[in-house]
């Protein structure tokens, strides 16, 4: 539907170009040099001199412009018609976009032809604006004159600063209702407590037996708000013989099952990739990888950073298995969850 419009557009353009070329071959019209005196502006620096004579009148160009505008109208009408004819489901985005783009393009072409063939294109000269030292001095004098009654300037400036500063502060004060001010305790919060059960995405409590090696699971604290950054943990299982956790974390990984905060300590993305060792030479150990900036953590050694920009390990959640085999938290995380801030201290999730 729009193909023939393109064709017409191209044809018209070619026609216009041919006409222009023939005219150019006929030689310049006798339109005499055109000079313009700038008397009316009243600006002494605004002298202009015409450099290029205005072009010839061109009836063919007028025709081309009119045709292009008609085509633009046609394309715009095509937009309206296709909007009206089709239902939401069958209306093609390409058709709508094509129509409106074509209409705009035809107008652009019409204006381009108009600019080149139907308005006098005169290159004029003028002066760059300068600076005026006299006026500058006058401005200084006027301002100084306004302050001539003042004797104790410093006192007034001081008092004014007090008023302005206090008013500015008062104006900003309501903004403090946006959130807590200078109170970072919420940043340390995580909803895990000793005994909290781990549930999967469907809300089903997880058992130690259901956690297999070579894959990873996302778990949440039972009954807590999942959207809290301290909620989601990633659970993996490694052979207990490969565990090299710090001494004070002995017993945090029953049957080799480990849980870490799923929020990367670098930039807060979800640690959503698990690299199980397939080729032990290059990848000797399992790794948790964040897809944003590729921070990589080793679950077997307590979530330490083995690659990428993260500056601190993934906080580990101590686990225990209860008598019925359900996985439960044995306490809160080993450190604050999520991206770091000034003063994020190791070892204090609350």
């Amino acid at each position, binding site marked *: 539907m729009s193909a023939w419009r393109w064709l017409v557009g191209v044809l018209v353009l070619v026609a216009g170009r041919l006409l222009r070329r023939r005219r150019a071959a006929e030689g310049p019209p006798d339109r005499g040099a055109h000079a313009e005196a700038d008397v009316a502006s009243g600006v002494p620096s605004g002298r202009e001199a015409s450099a290029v004579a205005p072009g010839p009148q061109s009836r063919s160009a007028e025709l081309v412009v009119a045709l292009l505008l008609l085509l633009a109208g046609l394309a715009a009408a095509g937009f309206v018609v296709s909007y009206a004819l089709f239902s939401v489901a069958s209306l093609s985005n390409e058709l709508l976009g094509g129509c409106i*783009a074509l209409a705009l393009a035809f107008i652009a072409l019409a204006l381009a032809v108009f600019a080149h063939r139907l308005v006098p294109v005169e290159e004029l000269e003028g002066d760059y604006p300068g600076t005026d030292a006299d006026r500058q001095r006058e401005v200084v004098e006027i301002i100084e004159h306004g302050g001539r009654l003042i004797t104790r300037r410093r006192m007034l400036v001081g008092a004014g600063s007090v008023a302005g500063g206090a008013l500015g502060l008062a104006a900003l004060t309501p903004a403090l209702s946006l959130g807590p001010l200078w109170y970072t305790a919420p940043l340390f919060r995580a909803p895990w407590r000793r005994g909290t059960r781990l549930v999967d995405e469907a809300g089903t409590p997880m058992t130690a037996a259901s956690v297999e090696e070579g894959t990873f699971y996302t778990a949440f604290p039972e009954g807590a708000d999942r959207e809290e950054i301290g909620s989601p943990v990633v659970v993996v299982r490694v052979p207990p013989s490969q565990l090299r956790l710090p001494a004070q974390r002995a017993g945090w990984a029953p049957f080799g099952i480990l849980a870490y905060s799923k929020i990367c300590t670098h930039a807060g993305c*979800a640690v959503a990739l698990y690299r199980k060792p397939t080729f032990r030479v290059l990848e000797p150990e399992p790794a948790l990888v964040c897809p*944003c900036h590729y921070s990589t953590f080793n679950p077997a050694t307590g979530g330490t950073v083995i690659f990428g920009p993260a500056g601190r390990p993934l906080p580990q959640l101590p686990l225990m298995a209860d008598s019925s085999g359900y996985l439960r938290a044995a306490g809160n995380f080993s450190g604050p969850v999520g991206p770091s801030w000034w003063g994020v201290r190791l070892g204090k999730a609350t």
Partner: protein
Amino acid sequence: MRRAAGTASPSAAIEDPVRFIDERTSSAALLRRALRYLFPDHWSFLLGEIALYAFIVLIATGTYLALFFDPSLAKTVYHGPYAPLHGAQMSEAYRSVVEISFSYKAGLLIRQTHHWAADVFVAAIVIHLMRIFFTGAFRKPRELTWLIGLLLLFTSLLEGYLGYSLVDDLLSGMGLAIGYSVLVSLPLVGGPLGLLLFGAPFPGKALFESRMYIAHVFLIPALLAALIGIHLALVAARHHTQFRRDRRHTERRIVGLPLFPAQVPRSLALMFAVAAVLFLLGGLVQINPIWQWGPYEPWIGTNGAQPDWYLGWLIGALRLMPSFDVVIGHYTVVPNPFWGGAAFPLLVLLVLAVFPWVERRLSGDRSAHNLLDRPRDAPNRTAFGVAFLGWVFLIFVFGAADRVYVLFGVNYETLLNVFRIAIWVLPLVAFVIVRALCRELQQSDRIDLERARAEDEAERAEQELRARAQPIA
């Protein structure tokens, strides 16, 4: 245009409104000057105009989108026409954008055009900035225009980021998480400031969506419009710069096409062309198919998440940083994202902002300039510009290193190590090469000039000889 004999003079129809306006505003002198405001003719002077016209498209399409977008994080379940999301839990914000894409005629077209316009807007500003830099157009008396332009660029980066963060799809949520991390990584004030703006630890209060929304549709666009106004007023106050094409172009005399009639249809043609390209892109080329990413939840992440192009340099910088936080004992002072996400862009802004003054001091050239340099005319500036922007560009390229791995199988770790060295070495090499190249080009210019002068002289001498010889014969 031929007129039938007997009709009244055409100027009567123009005379009356002009008289009406002047008698009420006494603005004829101003109008007269405005109509004859001169635009030097060079294609590269249109780059800023492209940005301006993309901004107009942004305002128009953005206003339309605001009529349908619901800035609310309240939970809902999707039951719309897009089957793969049926029954999915999502926010009203995300649902409304999926609706814009599928349930309203022309909704997708306007949304995609808006997104494309944002990408083109920033791209045009960046290319415009490079034009200004490499031709020395930022020099006195246009330093303020340069500073306002830089503010415009960085404000529009924030505006674009907020724009795609509003959608609450998976990508926007991941982007927000990174933005939040950079915010809380600011030394001393970061944590409290993050809590203040988000209202709670990430993902923040549900209200944060409204806060982003008012910033994206009102505060920042108003700021952008004001900055654009000041930018253009400053340009007009000092007039455009120009290249020295011939003897008429000097530091004091400007040569160009008057606003009316020559420039108006040209500029309008560009406006319609820009709009045409943007709507064509919006119609034909898919951008940010938010329905494919799904709704955001803090525990979901996806590989291959790429931000809009203009944030690629920050992703690259975040990924290139070696693993460390600045700590004193157990006390974290500067977390890692600060360097790539805040210090790096601020450094780039600072270097560009002070450059006009630094160059003045180093070159000792304190005079005002209306004539532009060609890049070769200022070898030091050109070489520094290539090196500095090349440094930023290499970091930008590294932002896509994971795509390079997926597409070409080049090991990411290898790329990381190569880039950590290349971003420092290549700019230095570029500096040396570009400076030598500029000097060579200057030298060859000088030789050409010399040759032309010699040939001129020889010809004149020959003519003189012939003229002297003739009377004897």
